[in-house]
């Protein structure tokens, strides 16, 4: 009788612990995903400054600038993970093309403003990459936990389902920056 009671108490205590663990992992994953959005927004806000700073000096590179502005506008309107990631990748490509172009204008680089903006842009790209990396780390932990025995027994109770990792789906897009570099 007592043994049974102890077993029940231990089982319930374990269930509470496992359930709460899954919930906190789930919320961390959601939060990590939101962080990517925050960083993407930061990039969108940065682009007008960048374009204004280089506009005057590179009048004849208008097409490169326009490509960036256009890619930004598309990215800001995008909805859903797949569309967002495609639009943001296109924006990354346009931005790296612009940066390569800026490299060709030493007098532009010499003004402090551009150096600062380049640093900001590099940092923003890093932030986005790190936010994705962090999201993938958290999501992997969450997925592993809910699939492992015995936590998998309470996964249904916690309404835990495997989340997607952030990846670059399109092979062509994955290659974009390299194409740009070789065109120099």
């Amino acid at each position, binding site marked *: 009788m007592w043994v049974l009671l102890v077993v029940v108490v231990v089982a319930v205590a374990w269930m509470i612990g496992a359930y709460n663990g899954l919930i906190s992992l789930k919320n*961390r994953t959601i939060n*990590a995903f939101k*962080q990517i959005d925050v*960083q993407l927004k930061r990039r969108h806000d940065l682009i007008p400054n960048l374009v204004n700073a280089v506009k005057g000096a590179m009048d004849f590179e208008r097409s490169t600038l326009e490509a960036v502005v256009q890619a930004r506008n598309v990215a800001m309107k995008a909805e859903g993970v797949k569309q967002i990631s495609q639009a943001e990748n296109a924006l990354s490509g346009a931005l790296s093309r612009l940066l390569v172009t800026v490299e060709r204008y030493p007098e532009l680089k010499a003004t*402090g403003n551009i*150096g*600062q903006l380049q*640093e*900001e842009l*590099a*940092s923003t790209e*890093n*932030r986005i990459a*790190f*936010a994705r*990396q*962090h999201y993938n*780390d*958290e999501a992997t932990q969450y997925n592993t936990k809910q699939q492992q025995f015995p936590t998998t027994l309470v996964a249904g109770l916690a309404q835990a389902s495997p989340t997607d990792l952030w990846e670059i789906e399109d092979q062509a897009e994955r290659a974009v920056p390299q194409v740009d570099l070789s065109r120099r």
Partner: protein
Amino acid sequence: MVGFVLFFAWLGFGGDLIAYLATDNPDPGSYHHVFPWLGIVLTSVAIIMAWYSYKKGPENVLWSTGAWEVIDPQDDRERQLVNVVEEMAIAAGLPRPRIWIVPDADPNAFATGHEPRDSHVAVTRGLLTLCNRDELQGVIGHELGHVKNLDVRLMTTLAALVGVVVLLGDGMGRVMWRRRGGRSKGRSGGGALVAILLVLWIISWILAPVVTQLLAVAVSRRREYLADAMSAQFTRNPLALAGALEKIEQADAPTAAITRGAAHLCIVDPLGRRLTNQEGWLADRLATHPPLSMRISRLKGMGYAELKKEDGPFTSSALG
């Protein structure tokens, strides 16, 4: 950690145990020491003092190094530092720590604080001038690794404990001297066991500061490898941190601004690296940091394993 607790229990309640044994005679009228008042008084004083120095710890460390906080970055390097710290905070999934610069030409960095929500990362001016962006990122990743592992809290606690033991040891020494002068004659002999315990207890009090420091050092050394690994996990670029450590190793001047009390918090031992670079039993016991060469070779091992896995010399650092 268990050793730590046992050692403190012995320091506090050992005296009571000795008094209990010493007064454990069958005379009904004489004083029998049962209630461990000595231990309780000592423990409560220690808890209050430790709590106070725990609360004030990070503040004191930052103050003693003369660091100033970067609130509004003035030049490109400071702006880059703020960016790098924010990037690493994202990679680690931590709130952004407060950023400080220590006006010292020797490259070094440290983290302090109580918990991730309220943590501080400080780098010296020398580190900013010496390291490039990737290397700075590796160093900051290491410091945020300490924050994420809650090492900063552990180290602040250890520093508080060491400080309290030193102070209490001082006080106990004075009390014991006075006692011995006053009424050593009136004591009835309690046997050889009591005498041995008493001598052991006094010796422990004399050695207490050294022992606590050794324990703190042992904890801190193990944590360094872990923080290096965390940095590699955040940046996915262990070779950058290895490069930074190599550069720091060559700049072998001691960090004058950082004193003994904060040594175990730093990325490399600020008190010159001669001891840190030796291996062997004694160096293992005394140095706050593992040998730099060992850390560098471990990081390089991680880096080359990654290169092999990716099947080619293309890492982010090779491209960027």
